[in-house]
C-alpha cells in the first residue's frame, strides 16, 4: 500500500479516510452530514433486534411463519423491514434434528437490514475458512455441542440471496408475549452459532 504515515495519534487508514471524505465533500459527491446519518442508522436503528422481531412473530403466528418461510423478504416487509444488500431472503428453520448456520466464504455477505452489520468474527478468516469444513468443531468451541444425529446445514451465502436462521421456539414459553420472546433471540441464534434459547429467570 505504501500509505503508512508517521502521525502519532491516527492510523494511516483514518487519515486517508478523512482525506477522501474531505475531497468528496469538496467536489459535491456527498456531504459529511449524509454520512453521519448513515452511521447513526446502523448504530441506532438497525441490528439484531430487527431479526428477533421477525422470528418472534413467526413463533407466535403460524400463518406469518408460513409466509416467512415461503418468501422471507415479503414477510419482513409486512413488518416494515427491508433495505440494501438483501434482495432475497431465505429463512432456514432449526428442528430438534437439524441445525442451520450461515457463512459467506468469499467475502462476508450478511442480511444487513435484518441483523444489522456483521460482527468482526463473522468476517474473520477463521470463521470463513473453517465453517464449511468443520462446523461441528467450530460450534463446539463456541459452546454449541451437537450430537451426531443432529444434521448440520451450512449455508454459504456467496450469491445475493441472504439467509436467516430460525431457532427452535423454547419449550414452556406459552406465557411469554411476542415482545418477551423477541428479547430472548440473539444475533448469534440467527446466524446459527448459538442454538439454545435462554429464558431469563
Amino acid at each position: 500500500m505504501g500509505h503508512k504515515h508517521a502521525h502519532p495519534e491516527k492510523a494511516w487508514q483514518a487519515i486517508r479516510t478523512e482525506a477522501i471524505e474531505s475531497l468528496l465533500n469538496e467536489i459535491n459527491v456527498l456531504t459529511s452530514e449524509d454520512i453521519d446519518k448513515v452511521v447513526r442508522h446502523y448504530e441506532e436503528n438497525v441490528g439484531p433486534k430487527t431479526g428477533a422481531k421477525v422470528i418472534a412473530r413467526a413463533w407466535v403466528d403460524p400463518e406469518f411463519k408460513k409466509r416467512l418461510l415461503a418468501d422471507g423478504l415479503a414477510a419482513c416487509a409486512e413488518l416494515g423491514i427491508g433495505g440494501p444488500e438483501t434482495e432475497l431472503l431465505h429463512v432456514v428453520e432449526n428442528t430438534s434434528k437439524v441445525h442451520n448456520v450461515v457463512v459467506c466464504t468469499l467475502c462476508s455477505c450478511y442480511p444487513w437490514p435484518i441483523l444489522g452489520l456483521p460482527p468482526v468474527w463473522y468476517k474473520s478468516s477463521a470463521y470463513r475458512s473453517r465453517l464449511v469444513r468443520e462446523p461441528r468443531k467450530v460450534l463446539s468451541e463456541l459452546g454449541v455441542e451437537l450430537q451426531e444425529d443432529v444434521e448440520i446445514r451450512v449455508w454459504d451465502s456467496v450469491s445475493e440471496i441472504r439467509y436467516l436462521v430460525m431457532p427452535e421456539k423454547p419449550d414452556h414459553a406459552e406465557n411469554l408475549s411476542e415482545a418477551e420472546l423477541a428479547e430472548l433471540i440473539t444475533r448469534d441464534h440467527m446466524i446459527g452459532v448459538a442454538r439454545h434459547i435462554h429464558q431469563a429467570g
Partner: protein
Amino acid sequence: MNGIHDMGGLHGFGPVEIDPDEPVFTTEWGSRVFCMTQVIDGLGVWNLDEHRHEIELMAPEDYLTHSYYGRWLFAMERILDRRNIVRREEVDLRAAEIASDKRQFTPVRKTDRNWPMSEDARVRWGAWRKEESVTPKFDEGQRVRVRNIHPPGHTRVTNYTRGKSGDIYRVNDQAWVFPDTRAHYQGENLQAVYTVRFDAQTLWGESQAEPNLYVYIDLSENHLEADQENE
C-alpha cells in the same frame, strides 16, 4: 480468480473468537468508510461485483492483514481514482496535509473530473432484475456438477466446490445478474441461481468430513453442468 479471499476449507487461521461486547463499528474511520461506500453505492459509480473484485485484487498479504473496512477503503480509493472522480494524488496530498495538522487544505484544482457523472455513465447496482424473467435450465432435485473453471477475473464459484457434484435443493428463478461478467462490465447475463446441496464427504473426503453435514451454496447457472455420470 483463485485468491486468498476464496478461503473456504483452509486451515491455519486459528479459533473463532467472539467478543460479546463489540460495538457496531470498532473504529471511527471504519464507520466512515462503510457509510461513504453505502452512499456511493446509490450514485451509480460502481457496481457491487466490481467493488468486491477490487478487494480481491489486494496483495494477498495485505488482504490478510487489513481489517474488513480496511479492504473497503482500498477498493473505494482505487475505484474513485480509476473513474477519475477522486485521484490518488489528490488523496495523497490531502492526507499529507491532515497528517501534518494543516488548518487549511490546498483546494482541488482538477478540471477534467468525471463528476457530476452523466446519467448514462451511471451503473446499476441491484442483484436481479425484477422486470426480466429467465428460464432455468436445471430442476429441483437434479444432480449437477460444479464446473472446474479458474477464471483470472472475478468469480463467485468457490474453489472448494469446483469439480464436485451435488443436488439442486432450490431453484431461485429470478433474473439474477451474473457477477463474473458484470464485475468486468461484460454484461449482466441474467440467469437463475441454484442452491446446491453437497454432502460433506464429497467436499472433504471420507476420512476428514464431519458426520451428518451438508453444505448448501448458491451458484449461478453458468457455474453448473448436468452430472450425467452420477444421475
